[in-house]
């Protein structure tokens, strides 16, 4: 198969774009897609300091790599979830990446903040592990950004992540998440930093290819808690659709952004308060993270 741009030997076929690329032209394509995402959603400027949430996986390290290559001012944030060897290995990948590029990396141990590491949370609170983990990550990312003066947090969510989240929300017609899901969430409160997803235009296979071609040392093995996760099932369903109809995931998510989201946004009317305990933003009196930490405390 030949590269669409230069005619050389292709390393990756992108059926949804009806194209194939050689290594240098794919890397160019990838960077252009990230640049387009940042531009289209005014995610951040070159003058702003960006906190990049990194997990040691392909997506977040690919994102950090592109932003460094493009000359953005970035700092990595690694949340240590305390998930046995998986966390040890993923932390080592982040530290290795930061050292190689001379970049700054902040490390926050979740156990210190929550009162328990992620593997202990389910038995203490009966809340599903992935849900408690997601809640903790969103909370701690925002707090770390505020404490260190970053106006924006960038995460490595890709097109497959976004399409699977959308699919899950639609299956249950969860109108609040449907009103909020976006490649860029503006700061709607002084204590909420902007959250952006510069990889939303790129599929999971494309971010893996970029990480491989850039020789990024990322953790290939899966989080032990992800096995059987609903989101993985949704991804599989979408990939089956993609196989018979290339571009299905793209059309699903981009169609939502253009036509679906505005309708749900009109329905949403959320009042933001500050948590009575920690002062972070919540729609209730006590924020989700403080409630979770209370449950952990009571169980001990």
């Amino acid at each position, binding site marked *: 198969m030949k590269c669409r741009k230069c005619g050389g030997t292709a*390393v990756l076929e992108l059926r949804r774009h009806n194209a194939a690329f050689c290594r240098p032209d794919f890397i160019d394509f990838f960077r252009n897609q990230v640049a387009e995402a940042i531009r289209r959603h005014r995610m951040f400027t070159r003058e702003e300091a960006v906190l990049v949430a990194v997990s040691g996986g392909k997506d977040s390290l690919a994102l950090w790599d592109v932003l460094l290559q493009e000359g953005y001012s970035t700092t990595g944030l690694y949340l240590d979830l305390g998930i046995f060897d998986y966390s040890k290995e993923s932390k080592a990948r982040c530290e290795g990446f930061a050292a190689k590029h001379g970049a700054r990396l902040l490390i926050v141990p979740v156990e210190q903040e929550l009162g328990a590491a992620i593997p202990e949370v389910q038995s203490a609170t009966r809340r599903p592990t992935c849900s408690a983990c*997601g809640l903790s990550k969103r909370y701690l990312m925002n707090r770390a950004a505020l404490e260190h003066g970053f106006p924006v947090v960038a995460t490595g969510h890709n097109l497959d992540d976004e399409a699977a989240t959308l699919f899950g929300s639609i299956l249950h017609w969860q109108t609040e998440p449907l009103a909020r899901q976006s490649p860029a969430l503006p700061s709607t409160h002084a204590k909420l930093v902007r959250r952006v997803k510069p990889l939303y235009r790129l599929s999971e296979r494309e971010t893996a290819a970029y990480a491989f071609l850039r020789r990024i040392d990322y953790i290939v093995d899966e*989080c032990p808690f992800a096995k059987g996760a609903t989101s993985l099932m949704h991804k*599989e369903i979408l990939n089956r659709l993609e196989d018979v109809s290339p571009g299905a995931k793209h059309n699903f998510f981009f169609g939502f952004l253009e036509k679906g989201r505005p309708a749900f946004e009109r329905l949403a009317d959320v009042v933001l308060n500050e948590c009575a305990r920690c002062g972070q933003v919540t729609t209730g009196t006590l924020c989700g993270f403080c409630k979770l930490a209370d449950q952990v405390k009571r169980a001990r």
Partner: protein
Amino acid sequence: MKVILRNPRREVEVAGRRRVRELLKELDILPETVLVIRGDEMITGDTVVGDEDVIELRPVISGGRV
């Protein structure tokens, strides 16, 4: 050829020459879910692979609910 799969890590032997896309079909793997790696290079679906090759099918899907 030797085919290396992950999660869990395992190896399978497949005999005979064929295109990568046919190999994936036989193993019931969706092309969208893996990178196909031979040596330290990625290869496309139309590439013919044979008995002497070692092929890694590296999964690209990750994540729980975030």
